[in-house]
């Protein structure tokens, strides 16, 4: 924020021009909902070129509806992508636990374990392994946190395919990716047609709401 360049300004204007394409695009909070929390998390390892910090990206769905999402640069440099992913897993677990608490306040008892989807087999293996050794010593806090959640039956980890839509959270994306993103996302567009006599027809133009 101290050294703002012309390039930053142009990039910002481009985001605004992107906004112009679908200003009415929003999200649908579906009425058919099983009230189960699903978390999806990923990390982009060492993506920030100046300090080599990694990026965390996650999104949480209640049933089919997206309710919480975030992209954030991590505080500490990760030495491997598994480490970066593990940190993002711990962050997502945090948010999942918090949302579960919020649901409890609304009298929704989340009896089944929450699902956390992660694309790194290594990070999954670390969380299943009860023994911490040299390679995981420095991320021990995160390890204990996720591991405890699994032991308590609060969380179940699921592996998903690497080329996921989560990339939209932390990478610039090409035209093909964004096409697939539309195909497989929660993105909806709405048009209201005002007819004579004040009848309003609501037309949903929506893309298949299945996450790859």
């Amino acid at each position, binding site marked *: 924020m101290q050294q703002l360049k012309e390039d930053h*300004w142009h990039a910002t204007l*481009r985001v605004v021009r*992107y906004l112009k394409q679908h200003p*009415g695009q929003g999200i649908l909070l579906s009425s058919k*909902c099983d009230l189960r929390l699903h978390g999806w998390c990923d990390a982009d390892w060492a993506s920030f070129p100046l300090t080599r910090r990694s990026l965390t990206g996650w999104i949480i769905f209640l049933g089919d509806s997206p309710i919480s999402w975030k992209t954030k640069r991590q505080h500490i440099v990760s030495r491997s992508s598994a480490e970066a992913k593990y940190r993002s897993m711990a962050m997502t677990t945090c948010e999942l636990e918090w949302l579960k608490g919020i649901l409890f306040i609304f009298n929704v008892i989340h009896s089944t374990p929450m699902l956390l989807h992660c694309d790194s087999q290594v990070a999954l293996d670390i969380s299943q392994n009860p023994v911490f050794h040299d390679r995981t010593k420095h991320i021990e806090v995160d390890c204990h946190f996720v591991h405890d959640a699994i032991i308590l039956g609060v969380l179940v980890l699921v592996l998903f395919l690497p080329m996921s839509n989560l990339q939209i959270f932390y990478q*610039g994306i090409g*035209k093909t990716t964004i096409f697939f993103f539309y195909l497989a996302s929660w993105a909806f567009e709405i048009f209201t047609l005002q007819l004579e006599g004040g009848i309003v027809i609501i037309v949903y133009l929506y893309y298949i709401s299945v996450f790859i």
Partner: protein
Amino acid sequence: MKDLGVLKYFLGVEIVQSLEGFYLCQRKYALDIISEVGLLGAKPALVPMEQNHRLALSTSTLLADPELYRHLIG
């Protein structure tokens, strides 16, 4: 207390209710931002950002009016 009817607009979020659920969008807010920068007539961009951008390593000239930039990104 007065019943104001079905929720339609709250804190900048437009809400439509139907049998399928609630649809939330910020069309007005988005259009306000676009008109503020004067890009209402501009060609829409397909993609919000370049792939593999190098913004952090940019060597272009410093921005003359950073206030507008800061205002735009909030």
